[in-house]
């Protein structure tokens, strides 16, 4: 049973080993564990951390503002990356759903539109075409509409 305080325990390795015989004594690990311990402030509360830094001359309020700005900048960068990735996916997907629309005639575009209304290209395309009157659309309008459906489907 370990002693209650270090006061009544001699600084004797053999005596100590009897208390904790299962401890790992690999030298590199031993040194590493000591160095990890020197850096360990896991017991300090937020208030104590703040006090420690202030006592060392750190303007904690200013640092936290700087950290918040860094967080916001990171978020903006992440959103931009995601938007670029979605745009790239949409560009790569062009032509993958309806084929290359650029050279299709109006009647071919209309056939694709009617197939989309019937669900041939999935629920998303069907929903977007359902309430549209293709007869009133010009060839270029029809082509643009189908291209938009393709991009939206690719970005999901």
């Amino acid at each position, binding site marked *: 049973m370990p002693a209650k305080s270090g006061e009544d325990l001699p600084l004797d*390795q053999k005596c100590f080993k009897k208390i904790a015989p299962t401890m790992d004594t690999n030298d*590199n690990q031993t040194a590493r564990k000591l160095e990890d311990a020197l850096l360990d402030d896991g017991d300090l509360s937020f208030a104590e951390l703040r006090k420690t830094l202030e006592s060392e001359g750190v303007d904690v309020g200013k640092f936290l503002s700087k950290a918040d700005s860094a967080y916001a900048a990171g978020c903006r960068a992440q959103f931009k990356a995601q938007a670029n990735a979605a745009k790239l996916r949409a560009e790569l997907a062009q032509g993958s759903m309806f084929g290359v629309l650029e050279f299709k005639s109006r009647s071919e575009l209309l056939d694709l539109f009617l197939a989309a209304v019937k669900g041939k290209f999935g629920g998303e395309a069907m929903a977007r075409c359902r309430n549209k009157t293709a007869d009133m659309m010009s060839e270029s309008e029809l082509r643009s509409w189908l291209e938009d459906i393709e991009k939206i489907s690719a970005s999901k």
Partner: protein
Amino acid sequence: MAPEHSETFSKPEKRHELVLRLLVFTRKYLRVHRGWNSDRMLPQGKDPQDIVTDLLEKIVAGDRALNAGDELLPQIMGMIKSEISNLFASSSAKQVSFVGATDKQSNHEPVTMATPAAAAEVNDLFDLLLAHPVVAADTDLGMVVLAYKEGADGPSAVAKAIGLDVKKVYECQRNLAKIYPSIKNALRK
């Protein structure tokens, strides 16, 4: 980013606690292993706050990935060590010298024993620690040193092994951190 990690960054109170812990860690790591103090600038004109905030931005932006299954704080602390190592390894850093620090502390290699080291050198380290006046005068501090010499893994294990309150063990560790750089200097002479 994994949901359990993203909340730590997105909620201000959790983010603030995280960055304060990281700043305390960064400053201490630089002091213990690089001979730094607050009067000195780091390479590239940076300071410890820059190291923490730059890394925070990279993690949130997705430029540095976190492992979802692992604890957050140890991962980021590992990244900080890596950032510091890269900072000192850059060509401009070779001209940086901390006045008063040893050559090894100032520039390239961190003063660490966590590299393949002769058993004798590790024993010398602990002997010097035990012989240091601050440790010699404090029985609890001496017991903490001995516990780590015998392979204890962390303050809870030390507290259990020697019967000290864990808060007291942490205090002892902080006191050891203050004298550790001088011990390392003595070891390299």
